Structures are given as C-alpha cells and as structure tokens.
C-alpha cells in the first residue's frame, strides 16, 4: 500500500479521504489556500502545505504547485476527490509523468468520457441504450432534420457542456434555430468549444446512476444504483439507495450495461454511469462521471463497502477483493447535502462564521462534514458544508430517521438549507417515491402551507426571544451552576444592540 497520499481537494471530501488514509495506515497530505489555513482538512491531515491564494485557479487548480508539493513531501499518489482537478485528464497525465499515481481512471478513459459526443459514440458502439438523437456535432440544418426525426420536444446540448450550461429545451420547430445559436455562443464563451448536438427530450425522467468499480486486472463490478432525482438546476439535493422503482431484474440489466460501458472505455477505479429513466422504466445513458461521486456514501451504507478504501487499493494495483456475486444490498440509505445557502432568498450562498453547530448522531446516522463550530466558511468555494446520511432497514424508516436527524441538526451564524429538507421529506410525493427531476422545482413553486401548531410554537418563540434578551440564567442543575461569562453573551448582546440601534436609527 502507499505510504503517503496527497489529497488535492478541500472540504468534506478531503476530510473523507484523510479518514480513509488514517484507517489504512497511510500518511495524508492536505493542501490549502490562504483562506483555508484553519480548515478541517488541514487540521485533520498528517501534513499540510499552502498552495496559493483563495481563488481556486491559483490554489486548488494550480497543477504545477500541487505536483511540486507532492514531489517535495514524497507523496506516492494523489487523490483528487470530486470537482477541482478530479476529471482533468491533463492533470492525470501530469501526475503520471511525475511518477505519481493518480487515484482514478487512465487519462484516456477520462478524455473519452469528458467529451459528450465521443462518449455517446463509444457507448452506442458498446450497446448502451441512448436517448434518440445525434452522436456528433451538428449544423443548424442537420439539427432541424434530426429533431424532425426524433420528434419534439428536443434538447440542444454543448458537447463540452456541464452543470446545465450550453443546454436549451426546444419545444417547437420554430424555436430551434435561435436556441441552437444561443446555446452555441454560450458554449463558445464558457468552454471555448461550439460543438452542439441534439437529443430527444425525456419528460420528467428519473435520474438513476450505477456505481462501478474496476481494478487494473480487468475486473469490473457494479455496486447497485443510486436515485438522484431530487435536483435543483441539475444539482443533486437528495440521493438514496436503492431506488424505489428498481427491482432485481432491472438492476441486473442496468448493472450489466454499466459494466459493459466501463469495460469498453478501459475504465478503472470508481466511476458512475448516469442514466435517465422514463415513466415506462426505459433507461438511457446520460453521462459517465470518472471520479468518486458526492453521493457515494449511500452506496457504502447499503453494500457495507468502503469506496475510498477500495479506490486506494485499486490504485495501488490490488485486485478487487470480491466478485459481483458477493455484492449484496441491504436496507435503505438517504443523503442530504447541507449547503450554506438561503432557500428563502433564491438559494443565495451564505458564507460566514459558524457560531453554533449541533450535530445529529445516534443509530443509523452518518455525517461527513468539512466544517466545525467556529469555522468561517469562506466565500470562495462551493457552499457545501456537510453531508448527512442515514441508514435504516427500509425506505420508510430511513425517511423517519432522516427527519429525526435533521431535528437534531442546528447551524447558527449562517443560513442553510436544513429546513428545506424537512419540507421535502414530508412531501407526500417524496414519501411515496413519486419523484423525478422536476419534483423539487414543483415543490419550490408551491407556497409552503402553514405548518401545524405554528401558532403555539410562535408563542414559545416570542417568550424565548424575550428570555434571550433578558440574559437567560446559566444553570444546568445543582452542580452545573457555572458563572455567567461575559464573552458568552455575544448572541444576546448583538440582539440588544440591533434592537437599540433600530430604535435610534431615525431619530
């Protein structure tokens, strides 16, 4: 096994990989930008090195600097996490040239899957079901012809696209030309690549993905599916495993396709084949993610495996320690992505200091966090704070458990999306697993109804607010009579100050 691994990432995923390294007896090396000196991944790693200022392109994307650190400290491998350099084939190549193992697939597989049109062609050749449409870049005229063939509505997509950019839904022939041109200019601006293709639009599909794992000896297995249909702007919000619409037959068919896709791409290490599934349970290849996914924990909980351990063992040249028939699914897992954002203000990010952090625990609760009480969430990166994952014997119990865990979770000082999860988990469609990629938008468009019991709770809130203002007594029983410390009153006094300054503002 490697003696030392550098983690080219930050936040919860860096902490996740550091934990795996510690469990495997591998020294972990963190990198950090100026604003991350006190970040959790820095304090938890065995070693940590500054790689540049806050902007990611000067630090977490700074290939030369990261490789220099790796060489200098003697790291034998680099784990890229997700995001940042994780799907950057050039970085993977540079690692190889520097004699450092990149924990992921070969650069050639990354490049193949990085181009949507090349991936489409390759997957079609491998017999993977595709959404009807073109497998290569089109002109406007060709697009019009193809659209007529597959039938409206259609999606116009940039070959180099991602994250919803360079994508347009076209409902009628009349809109096609202008949508094509807008998408193309957006793609040129964003990705410096104007290649555009077209697919039939699948209405209200589910997003279901298959986790695959391949070693460097030709063995590839699938580890069941994840349902990721609860999305906002193509960003996953809640993921679960297994999917409520899956049966063993469909799982085996999708799994076989995913393994075939991975094999045909010469894929090694952990990867994910994303599919769209329509109302008739037909599934279509969407794309392959050539890295560890944010939502990998739900697969870990239902399979009992540790994907990061396996990634490191595979990268080290080990064979997969089990075969397909050894993989079994048990129970149900759900993940909520906790973000520093304000769902009541258009999901605007809310960086700042976490003044209070109460974390859930107990039976079936896992938290993969990248923050701590007192940490100031910088405004320079993704606003994800933590992932809350629960496990229970079945979906109903997992939902109940997640609600309980959310009740125990409290983040003070910044806005989070915690209360939004409560709304989702109580929604009858979610409870009944009637979800598709449009579910969350529909939920957000609906006015939240008045919660039951709000009135009497409002009275409790009013009394509590007065108590906080009145300097609450600081006692917890006979032997808990700690003295009131001045520094501990900041919350109350901030409130008082606010009240007073409001009072005098317009004098």
């Amino acid at each position: 096994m490697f003696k030392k691994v550098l983690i080219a990432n930050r936040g919860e995923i860096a902490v996740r990989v550091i934990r795996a390294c510690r469990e495997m007896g591998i020294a972990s090396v963190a990198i950090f930008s100026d604003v991350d000196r006190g970040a959790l991944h820095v304090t938890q790693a065995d070693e940590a090195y500054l790689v540049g200022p806050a902007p990611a392109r000067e630090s977490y994307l700074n290939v030369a600097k990261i490789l220099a650190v790796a060489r200098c400290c003697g790291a034998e491998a680099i784990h890229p996490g997700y995001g940042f350099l994780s799907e950057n084939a050039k970085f993977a190549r540079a690692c190889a040239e520097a004699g450092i193992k990149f924990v992921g697939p070969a650069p050639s597989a990354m490049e193949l899957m990085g181009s949507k049109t090349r991936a489409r062609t390759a997957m079609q050749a491998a017999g993977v079901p595709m959404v009807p449409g073109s497998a290569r870049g089109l002109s406007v005229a060709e697009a019009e012809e193809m659209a007529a063939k597959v039938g409206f509505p259609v999606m116009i997509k940039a070959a180099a696209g991602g994250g919803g950019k360079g994508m347009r839904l076209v409902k009628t022939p009349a809109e096609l030309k202008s949508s094509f041109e807008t998408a193309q200019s957006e793609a040129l601006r964003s990705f410096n690549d104007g290649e555009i293709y077209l697919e039939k639009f699948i209405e209200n599909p589910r997003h279901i993905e298959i986790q695959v794992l391949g070693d460097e000896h030709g063995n590839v297995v699938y580890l069941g599916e994840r349902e990721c249909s609860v999305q906002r702007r193509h960003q996953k919000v809640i993921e679960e495993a297994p999917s409520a619409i899956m049966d063993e037959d469909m799982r085996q068919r999708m799994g076989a396709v995913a393994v075939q896709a991975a094999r045909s791409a010469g894929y090694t290490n952990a990867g994910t084949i994303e599919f769209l599934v329509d109302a008739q349970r037909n599934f279509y290849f969407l794309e392959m993610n050539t890295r560890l996914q944010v939502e990998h924990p739900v697969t870990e909980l239902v399979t009992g495996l540790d994907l990061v351990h396996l990634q490191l063992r595979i990268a080290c040249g080990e064979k997969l320690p089990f075969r397909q028939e050894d993989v079994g699914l048990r129970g149900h897992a759900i993940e909520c992505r906790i973000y520093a954002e304000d769902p009541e203000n258009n999901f605007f990010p809310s960086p700042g200091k976490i003044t209070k952090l109460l974390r859930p625990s107990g039976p079936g609760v896992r938290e993969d966090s990248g923050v701590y009480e007192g940490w100031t969430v910088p405004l320079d990166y993704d606003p994800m704070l933590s992932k809350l994952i629960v496990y229970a014997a079945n979906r109903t119990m997992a939902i109940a458990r997640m609600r309980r865990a959310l009740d125990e979770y409290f983040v003070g000082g910044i806005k989070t999306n915690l209360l939004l999860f409560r709304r989702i988990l109580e929604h009858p469609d979610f409870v009944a697993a009637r979800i598709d990629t449009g579910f969350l938008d529909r939920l957000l468009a609906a006015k939240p109804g008045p919660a039951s019991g709000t009135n009497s709770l409002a009275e409790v809130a009013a009394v509590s607010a007065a108590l906080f203002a009145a300097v609450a007594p600081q006692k917890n029983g006979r032997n808990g009579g700690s003295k009131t410390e001045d520094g501990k009153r900041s919350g109350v006094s901030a409130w008082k100050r606010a009240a007073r300054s409001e009072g005098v503002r317009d004098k």
Partner: protein
Amino acid sequence: MIYEVTIAEKTYRVELMRNGDRWNCRLGDREWPLDVVSVQDGVLSLLLDGKSYEVKQETVGTEASVVVGLERFSVSVQDPRSFRSRRRAGASEQGVKKITAPMPGKVVRILAGIGATVEAGQSVIVIEAMKMQNELKAPKNGVIKKINVAEGAAVEAGQSLAEVE
C-alpha cells in the same frame, strides 16, 4: 421587564418577572411559571406545562431568529429602553434608508451612483459570493445619498453599503 417581540407581523407583549431562581411570564392575559435553563450558549431548554422545548437563538448578519423544534421564527425584539424611540421610528417612513449586505461577499457592480434617482425595488449594488451574484435593491423611492463601498471591495454581513433618501 417587558419586551415586545414581533414575529411574522404579529407583536407579542412578553412580561418577564424574576421569581428567585425562576421566572414568571405574562403573555397577553395568561401567566406561566417558566422552567428555563441555558444548556449551552444560545440554547435554552424550556419546560412549559410539561412540554420540553429546545430553543436556539440564531443571528445571521442583522437578522435574528429563534428556532423552536423544527420551526424557525424571524424575531424582532424591543427592550424596555427603546420603546419610545421605536414607536417614533415605526411612524416615520420618510428618512434615510440603508442598503446593507445580507452576507459577506465582494462588490462586483454598482448600478446607481450618488445622486441617482431610484425606485423601490430597483437594483443598486451587486455582490458576489461562492460564484453566485445577488442584486441588492433600493428599499424605497428616493435619491442615492451615499455609497460606502467601491467595486471589488469585500464586505461583511450587515455592513451598510449605501443610503437612499
């Protein structure tokens, strides 16, 4: 001590009376003995008629909330000393209004300069955090009287960025 607590446009008059180690509370025409302890900084445990409430206090920027169980309530508290001035303040909608940053960020654009006439709801300043942009709007019709920041400046939550008169 008497506090006026406003939640969702409803104002509660809360009277707290110390009773040795405990508190009594009058809310409207009801009076309760309060069994309350501060279990952590900003967290109270309240027992009311046997019901147990864990209440958390939250301040984000200039916005104060109280979280009871699963519900968050935005609260505004007036303490006894600010009563009179507050009433006056409530009556006047004519004075200077500030535009404050709701969260830390960077000023990326200033859309209306000093002296510009703006309408309520018109965007005045754009700030950015975590790659998302937020337009801060004029709180009333008026004229931009002051701009306290420059483009590119980093701002803190609650910082006053501009004033409209």
